[in-house]
């Protein structure tokens, strides 16, 4: 997928869904977000810049539905920039994150975001430690 398409969609959603007092800042950050997709950059720097511009863009959303939509489009843009093939699993993960973000924005409970952040921190630690350890054991020979 061309990186510029989700980036442009993200900027449009950001400006359309921004709360009234933050529409200008959403426009500026959105433009910067799109600009990052046009300039020539190494892949890791592009990912870093898109993350640095994209996720603060979510802060400007005025309504829960736009928070969710913004999260989905920012994640797809950054994942595309990182060279990840956007398949069904990735789309589902992005959609799940978007729905969760939308629910957070409704401010139903303080516990919910803390719980979700905790779960995903555990997921990162699981992959870094447990899966890495299992792989290490899997390739270990009888001679070591």
């Amino acid at each position, binding site marked *: 997928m061309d990186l510029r398409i989700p980036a442009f969609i993200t900027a449009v959603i950001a400006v359309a869904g921004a709360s009234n007092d933050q529409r200008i800042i959403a426009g500026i950050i959105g433009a910067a977000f799109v600009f990052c997709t046009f300039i020539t950059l190494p892949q890791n720097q592009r990912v870093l810049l898109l993350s640095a511009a994209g996720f603060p863009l979510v802060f400007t959303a005025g309504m829960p539905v736009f928070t*969710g939509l913004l999260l989905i489009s920012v994640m797809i843009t950054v994942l595309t920039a990182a060279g990840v093939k956007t398949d069904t699993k990735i789309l589902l*993960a992005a959609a799940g994150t978007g729905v969760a973000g939308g629910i957070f924005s409704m401010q139903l409970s303080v516990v919910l975001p803390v719980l979700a952040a905790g779960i995903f921190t555990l997921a990162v630690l699981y992959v870094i430690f447990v*899966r890495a350890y299992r792989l290490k054991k899997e390739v270990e020979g009888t001679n070591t």
Partner: protein
Amino acid sequence: MRPTLLTGLLLLFSLLSFMYAWMMNSAEAAAAGLGLLVFVSLSAGIFQTNLRSLALSLTVVREADRTVVDQNGLISITSAITAVTGRLTASFDDVLPPGALLVSGSPAFTAGRASYRFRLPVIGSSYFQGVRATCRDQFFTQTLLIARGAELPKLTMYPTGITATHFAVGQGSGWSAVEFDRPALISGYDTRTLRPYAEGDSVRNIDWKLSGKHQELYVRLKMDASGGLPALFIDLPPEGTADELRLHFAETAVGALESLNIGENFPVVFFKGAADPEIISSGKTSVILEKLKETENTTTGEHLFRLRHPSSLVRETMITSRDPTKTELRIREITREYAGRNPTAFESKMGSISAEMAKQTHITYVTAALGDLSHMTYLINETKRHQRHATVFVAGAAGTPRETKVRTAFTLAGADVVEMV
């Protein structure tokens, strides 16, 4: 598995988002932080999946010019590797069998191939430890030792024979006598001593009568009829060793001198770390006792430069769980460039001592075996290479947790007898 700088920054963004959410009561910021965490966990999962595919697709084929060698024999290896790296950036290194000493070439794969030569001082069967793969993508990096299916070929080393070390019959008297071993003269060989069976020993050398009596296999160590003389090597303990241990060490050294009963004109060689060894005649008791009061004065890391390519240096420079620094890379480069080309000062000195001791065929070592053992294993190897008999007395290690480790190291180096005192 370690995150790269980029992942670290993303996690920092996530933390900042949560802090902002907490301070400004912004639910959107919490959602953004969550988005970043999901992104990082997805990246970690993708990296692990790619790494697993790479590890399972890896195949290595090694061609050895020989698989059965004599003690310290040289083996030439040509390795070819294939692996599906996918989106990962990967580099591979062959990992030599435990105890092997790289002599020339490099075990790092370049364009899928690696050629190198090494010595194998370990008695019995040895296998390669595998292939070390260093993989990275934008978000994570990991160094993985892939051993499954990467251990062949099996290498076997048989120890060399042992020269005669005692005098049975002959002409003249005293230590200048020329003496011969009568049983050896008649049968071609005699039994020098017996020791427990170790993997790699010939089945023909097993003493079945003794083995039956002790319910454990014993092998006869043979000697020929050439005769030979003894020598004592004393490896002084390092600075800072407890007084009690030093006293025990000195007692062991004097005890070895007494029990060997080697007369007055045989060499007693003192080692003080990487410094030049000092040779003292066995008759000069007062000088020997004075030397025993000294300690090793090696500075930290100096042991690494005793040998041209000790396995400890390979371990310290090649096995690292993090990205190597410029200095480490430079050391690695120098190590590879000069591996096996020029003997170190220590090796040259040992070469000349070895040449002087052409008649000394029964070498006894006394050591405290504290810290680095590479020089001791090197000396024992040299002893075996010259077809001499090596007995090692280790002072202060009996009953301690390092006993097994020390015994294994010296036995693998080829010592015929290792006594914990």
